[in-house]
């Protein structure tokens, strides 16, 4: 028999994973069973989903690491020039 009851820590972990679509079906079922009786985790799950939605909506962007490295290289050259 599989253990269907999970602790709050586990539930939050699964919730985080599902925000990135990395939770398995069984994990999601366990999470939903947990949410039936746990008010705190219901709140956390709700806020977490809202955060995901907001960030998706905002379309925020970041520079990835290679871009930043290139930038830094160029900038450091100029920096050296400025101080010499």
């Amino acid at each position: 028999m599989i253990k269907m009851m999970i602790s709050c820590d586990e539930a939050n972990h699964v919730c985080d994973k599902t925000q990135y679509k990395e939770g398995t079906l069984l994990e999601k079922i366990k999470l939903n069973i947990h949410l039936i009786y746990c008010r705190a985790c219901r709140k956390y799950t709700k806020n977490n989903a809202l955060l995901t939605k907001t960030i998706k909506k905002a379309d925020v962007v970041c520079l990835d690491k290679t871009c930043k490295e290139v930038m830094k290289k160029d900038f450091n050259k100029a920096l050296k020039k400025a101080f010499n």
Partner: protein
Amino acid sequence: MPKHQIDPNKWIELYSDYLFNYTISRVSDRDKSQDLVQDTFLAGLKSMKNFKGQASERTWLISILKRKIIDHYRKINSKKGKAEVRINYKDSESEGDWLEERVADPFDKTAEDNLQNSELGDAIHNCLEKLPKKQADVFKMKTILGYETEVICNELNITASNLWVIIHRARTAMAGCLKENWF
């Protein structure tokens, strides 16, 4: 009032994401935005002695960036030459004022939506800046850049469970911060 210090060594680490996000919501071209941000840093370096310390470094850099963005639009406008389109409802052929033509299009909500989105982007970056550096890095890589868990773990040399703990803390902090400043 304590004077703000200037330290160009940390600029890219601290402000490049914020400036980039600011630019891309106004220029909407990735490469061009990156160039503009880079130009801003270089221009800032050149005019460092003009920094009076009245505003924070970031505000100061943003004010340079704004100039750069305006210059960018000027440039592409002059490239177009004189092919400027002027809409004028008051020519001799259509006499009288047509009220219908002056009413704002109720279905054209995109301008406002864009504005709100760029403000939301600023709010998100402000919250990200309040996180500890490691949390912010992991959160950005995972949520905004969409990297795989494994890639991040290898990059930062942490275990998967370690990553999820960091993500959990970052998400809790972000949700709280946005709740205060946005919702």
